[in-house]
């Protein structure tokens, strides 16, 4: 049993409390299908129990069998409509390994620039057009009028940087469509998508990404068009980051104890991003070395300690568990990969050996209740299957990179305690030095804060990538693609950071065709249900710990603290939440709000 599971047990079996079951289904302002079902203890203002469910099955692992391995990136891009390019990139990494091809350095800089633009775009859109609404004036007025009153009286500490006098002014600027900052963010998310399209062709399913490199035509013009936009975005960040600092700091101040909202044990996974073409040769045997050279360091952080930065060790520990998911088990199924190229044994529950057989059935919250599986990381040191989360992406990336202390590229420097980010002068603003510091908690507000800072990280890293790409172009090394041959038998794996966190693709080729393919995006890690050991997934776990600060009672309850927690993970699927009342037995089932419920029968 994982140690992080222990404190939750009493809440689930305590029959003396008044619990109300409530459900939000679908949870909006996320990507995809996610349901969160909770039991809430209103007397003690706490969420007692939570289950996370997803109501859509698509079957990539099933229909990819037998397809041409060169098509893997084009197919898997379609997994996600907001970060499909992260999938395409990760698939290309896995293809490169399986095909034994090393793209020209320029291609890697172009991919890094595309992916950096994706982080800028996606974090921007999600933070200010989806998450931001949970902190906007309209929402705070409806959930915590007392907090809004206080926000009206509270001067924004960085007003000189972002131009909003009070915290309430910031909140008003975040109101959907009518808010000034909401609209500006939407505009900026288009500018950064243009940057993305320059490098990878189209957003969100790239047209110019291939195993072996890119089809992008690398001329000075390409980098000029990118840099002009990048600098305009950096100018925006000089207002955006201080604005979010002011907003999130205010919640700690206005609602003492808010650090407990969405808090869970520090169990963070980051699979690394931005290849260093000087080191990366895509061989499995040297993966530990070149993995550490990535410009976002891969790592697993347990209780604030960096457990490993070794991609081989990370790979070997991945286990996909069932327990609450609508699938048949594959424990006795085919074993595709018995050992890795270094001779390490590969577990039957590893993605290389997974066989996906869907088994649609009635949803039963005491049994099987979701299409999501339960990826876990087996920690050989403790024997535990850890339910790692990604902190919504940025929190884990920062934490691992900061502790590893390896990244030092001028514009960005990891210090062991944090990460320094230097933003240069822009048209109307002087240079700005930012520092992300390792926070005291892995909680809702810190996941969100990291999302603002990581936009700056990606922008600063992009400056480095442009410099390096231009060195290639100026030297006349403009080739962007290396030829390859598809082997009859091969395996490959790719590790990357999707916008919302750790992403892996595992590929097995037999007779020149895909024999097995399993992508593990961040959302299965974060949105996973209770596994076979009873360990809840991170959303379940984080929501279960959440105290309720909302001022509304059960009748008008919006569940804002729960919504903020779920969204802090940047879910990439649509969701729902349900609640019980009285002595742990269900005496009322409410949907929130209740009107119209009888219409669809």
């Amino acid at each position: 049993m994982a140690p992080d599971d222990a404190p939750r047990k009493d809440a689930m079996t305590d029959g003396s409390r008044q619990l109300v079951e409530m459900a939000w289904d679908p949870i909006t302002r996320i990507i995809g299908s996610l349901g969160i079902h909770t039991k809430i203890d209103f007397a003690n203002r706490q969420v007692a129990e939570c289950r996370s469910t997803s109501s859509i099955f698509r079957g990539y692992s099933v229909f990819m069998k037998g397809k041409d391995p060169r098509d893997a990136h084009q197919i898997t891009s379609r997994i996600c409509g907001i970060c499909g390019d992260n999938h395409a990139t990760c698939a290309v990494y896995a293809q490169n390994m399986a095909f034994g091809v090393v793209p020209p350095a320029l291609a890697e800089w172009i991919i890094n620039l595309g992916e950096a633009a994706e982080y800028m775009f996606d974090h921007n859109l999600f933070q200010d057009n989806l998450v931001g609404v949970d902190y906007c004036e309209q929402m705070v007025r409806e959930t915590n009028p007392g907090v809004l009153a206080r926000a009206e009286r509270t001067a924004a500490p960085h007003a000189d940087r972002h131009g909003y006098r009070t915290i309430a002014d910031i909140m008003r600027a975040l109101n959907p469509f009518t808010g000034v900052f909401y609209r500006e963010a939407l505009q900026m998310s288009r500018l950064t998508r243009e940057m993305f399209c320059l490098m990878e062709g189209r957003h969100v399913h790239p047209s110019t990404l291939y195993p072996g490199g890119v089809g992008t035509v690398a001329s000075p013009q390409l980098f000029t068009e990118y840099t002009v936009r990048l600098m305009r975005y950096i100018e925006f960040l000089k207002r955006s980051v201080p604005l979010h600092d002011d907003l999130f700091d205010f919640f700690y101040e206005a609602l003492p104890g808010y650090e407990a909202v969405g808090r869970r044990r520090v169990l963070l996974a980051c699979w690394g991003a931005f290849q260093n073409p000087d080191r990366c040769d895509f061989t499995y045997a040297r993966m530990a070395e070149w993995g550490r050279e990535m410009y976002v360091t891969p790592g697993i952080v347990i209780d604030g300690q960096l457990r490993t930065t070794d991609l081989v060790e990370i790979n070997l520990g991945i286990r996909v568990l069932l327990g609450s998911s609508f699938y048949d088990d594959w424990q006795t199924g085919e074993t595709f990969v018995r050992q890795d190229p270094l001779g390490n044994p590969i577990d039957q529950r590893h993605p290389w050996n997974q066989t996906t057989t869907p088994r649609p059935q009635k949803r039963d919250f005491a049994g099987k209740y979701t299409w999501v599986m339960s990826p876990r990381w087996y920690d050989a040191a403790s024997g535990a299957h850890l339910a790692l989360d990604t902190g919504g992406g940025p929190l884990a990336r920062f934490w691992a990179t900061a502790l590893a202390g390896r990244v030092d590229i001028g514009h960005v420097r990891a210090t062991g305690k944090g990460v320094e980010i230097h933003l240069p002068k822009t048209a109307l603003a002087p240079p700005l030095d930012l520092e992300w510091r390792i926070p005291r908690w892995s909680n809702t507000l810190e996941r969100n804060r990291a999302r603002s800072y990581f936009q700056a990280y990606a922008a600063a890293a992009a400056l480095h990538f442009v410099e390096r790409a231009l060195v290639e172009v100026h030297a006349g090394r403009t080739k962007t693609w290396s030829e390859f041959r598809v082997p009859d038998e091969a395996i490959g794996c790719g590790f990357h950071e999707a916008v919302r966190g750790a992403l892996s693709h595992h590929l097995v080729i037999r007779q020149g065709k895909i024999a097995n393919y399993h992508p593990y995006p961040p959302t299965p890690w974060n949105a996973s249900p209770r596994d076979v050991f009873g360990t809840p997934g991170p959303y379940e776990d984080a929501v279960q710990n959440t105290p309720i600060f909302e001022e509304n009672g059960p009748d008008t309850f919006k569940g804002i603290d729960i919504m903020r927690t779920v969204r802090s993970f940047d879910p990439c699927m649509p969701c729902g939440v349900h609640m019980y009342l009285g002595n742990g037995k269900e005496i009322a089932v409410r949907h929130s709000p209740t009107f119209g419920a009888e219409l669809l029968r």
Partner: protein
Amino acid sequence: MAEIDILWITAGLGCDGDTIAMTAATQPSLEDVLLGALPGLPTVRLHNPVLAYANGEAFLAPFRRAVAGELDPFILVVEGSIPNERLKQEGFWAAMGTDPATGQPITTCEWIDRLAPHAWAVVGAGTCATYGGIHAMEGNPTGCMGLPDYLGWRWRSKAGVPIVCVPGCPVQPDNFMETLLYLLYQYVGLSPMIPLDEALRPTWLFSQTVHEGCDRGGYYEQGDFTAEYGSKKCIVKLGCWGPVVVCNVPKRGWMNGIGGCPNVGGVCIGCTMPGFPDKFMPFMNEPPGAAISTSAVLMYGRTVRALRNFTKSALDKEPSWRRTTPPERTP
């Protein structure tokens, strides 16, 4: 002032990429439509899960009212491929919300069945919702399909509007928003019935092949084909299906005129087409027909290229009466 609701279901088998694409549009932008920035527009209320203020039942309320016939008029937008729920014993492939009577999820098919008869128009956003797309690939366990296959190709809304298909994987942002704009103008009587082709696509957006709008078409004409990605030349031999695919992306760019597919070095994989993806795979092979047509163009192409190079080199020189050396300067 006229009013209309847009009920947008993303709960097909999809990726929400068409909703995200919509947020990239600028001609018109989402704000332009919702804030009434264009003349003559009705008041539009958008109910899309990715952008909605409300959650759960509050979000579903207008959908439930529409099912009950209490919300009128509305445009139903479907995103994602529609599964065949008959292909299994129990449970569901795709659903949105929970049925309070059973505690079980409400399937996407049930929503479409109950909403479509009340809709003023039904729009498929992206190739999954229009023709099945990537999730309808051979070997898929869900038996999924596009809206015309699900409702019937001859289906008409109660206002007499056929299913409107805006394909693309994802949909080109402005193509979608412009189609929506057209329908809004049609709704208020400022435009006639939306013109659609036999695949139910708006004709003014889908009347041209990729090749006809591709700025690399000149290389094709001159028989100049590359065997390497990253080249400026025609990439048909790398697997580009542009000559036979209906799509305006190379002409229009991906967003704000930037990006695209063959125009920026990516092979066209036919993602707007009803035959996508199966008829275009493997994507990195030269299309079978391309071998013949490129051979046919080769002799003509090489000849005109040589002639043009000859003329170009002449034009690259200034006329003989202009100075070709700097004048002597006074110190």
